């Protein structure tokens, strides 16, 4: 008698858990479009937010695309292109860029897409990738030609995460 009560409670919890899990999975799938923090350049054409609606554009800062100017009233201005591979969007931004903003790094910008296809950003956030490495290791990878940070993600972690570059290491 005691055992069966316990078993019944166990089954109730298992069934409730299954139901809740299914409901959550369905909800997340249904609202996935609303849960995105930013749109990638190649998603813009499909979604077509229009010139009036502010949205976030995210991707990598294209290598060699960053041009820094000063506006007539003396504020810093940056022009760069955001890419996700298949598509690229030019962006203009007036303001101070965050520390981590670099070519080849991820970025999320908030703004509006003007009819001429240029994205006018009012806010720029830098994204950080999931790699952590000491400066000497990054230098060694760059020096030996294994990685150009402007071109994007570093080589597979196993090739550098135990590297101890005291002297210049060639090859390997």
């Amino acid at each position: 008698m005691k055992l069966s009560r316990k078993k019944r409670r166990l089954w109730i919890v298992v069934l409730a858990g299954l139901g809740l899990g299914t409901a959550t999975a369905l909800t997340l799938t249904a609202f996935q479009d609303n849960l995105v923090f930013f749109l990638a350049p190649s998603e813009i054409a499909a979604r077509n937010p229009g010139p009036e609606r502010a949205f976030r554009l995210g991707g990598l800062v294209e290598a060699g695309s960053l041009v820094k100017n000063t506006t007539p009233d003396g504020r810093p201005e940056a022009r760069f292109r955001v890419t996700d591979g298949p598509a690229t969007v030019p962006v203009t931004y007036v303001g101070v860029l965050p520390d981590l903003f670099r070519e080849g790094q991820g970025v999320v910008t908030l703004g509006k897409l003007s009819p001429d296809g240029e994205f006018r950003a009012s806010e720029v956030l830098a994204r950080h990738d999931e790699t952590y490495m000491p400066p000497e290791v990054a230098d060694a990878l760059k020096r030996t030609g294994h990685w150009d940070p402007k071109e994007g993600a570093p080589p597979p972690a196993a090739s550098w995460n135990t590297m101890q570059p005291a002297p210049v290491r060639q090859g390997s």
Partner: protein
Amino acid sequence: MRGVSTPAPSSPRPLAATAPRGGGGLHRFANPGRFLRLTDRLLPWLWALAVAVTGAGAAWALFFSPPDWQQGETVRIMYVHVPMAWLAMGGYAGLAVASLMSLIWRHPLADVAARELSPVGAMVTALCLATGSLWGRPMWGTWWAWDARMTSVLVLFFLWVGHAALVRAFDEEERGARAGAILALIGAINLPVIKWSVDWFNTLHQSASVTRISAPGMHVDMLYPLLVCALGFTLLFAALVLARVRAAVMEKRLRQMQLAQARRQEGAA
């Protein structure tokens, strides 16, 4: 101090040797006397070990680990932020297990553990959010963003606080424990959402660096101090929860003795 001077509730599930049979070997620990004797010897060692490991980890992380090639010295926030995130989620998994044991097997110590776990869990989740904010400002350029990762961790914080409040909201302790256990199990659905939010959705937050121990996207000179810090904070977390459970068991016994004394005096009068 909460709970010391509250009138004794007539708990139908006393923390005594009357634990139901058949719940597995874990009911051995339901004997409060044995629990208190065991932890009395264990706890000082646990505290000493926790403080030593955390201290060593902090020194390593702050002074003897390299800066990041991009983030510079700010990367040293990671050695607090990441262990707090792991503890916030791991602790909640522990809360869910305790809630299961409470709901299905009616284990008497599980309710006490859940009740004492949630304030500590709320604290580490708050620390995770606060250190993340302090890290995000110089690196991303913002204190906060409503992306899926940060929002789901904020929900986790509210679940912790909600559980802590709910189990204390009933006059009858058992009903509070039951309601809290149900809330904790419903909230457990949030754990996979947090874990995979950075993979399922576009987020400002980056993906996990330490996923497979074979090739974590982190240099070993940063990974090892991170693991030491994580171990240290986990030991601190465990010591804190154990100390709170110990105090709670003693408070419960105190209430039982006060009740017994009051009955004796009534009988004598």
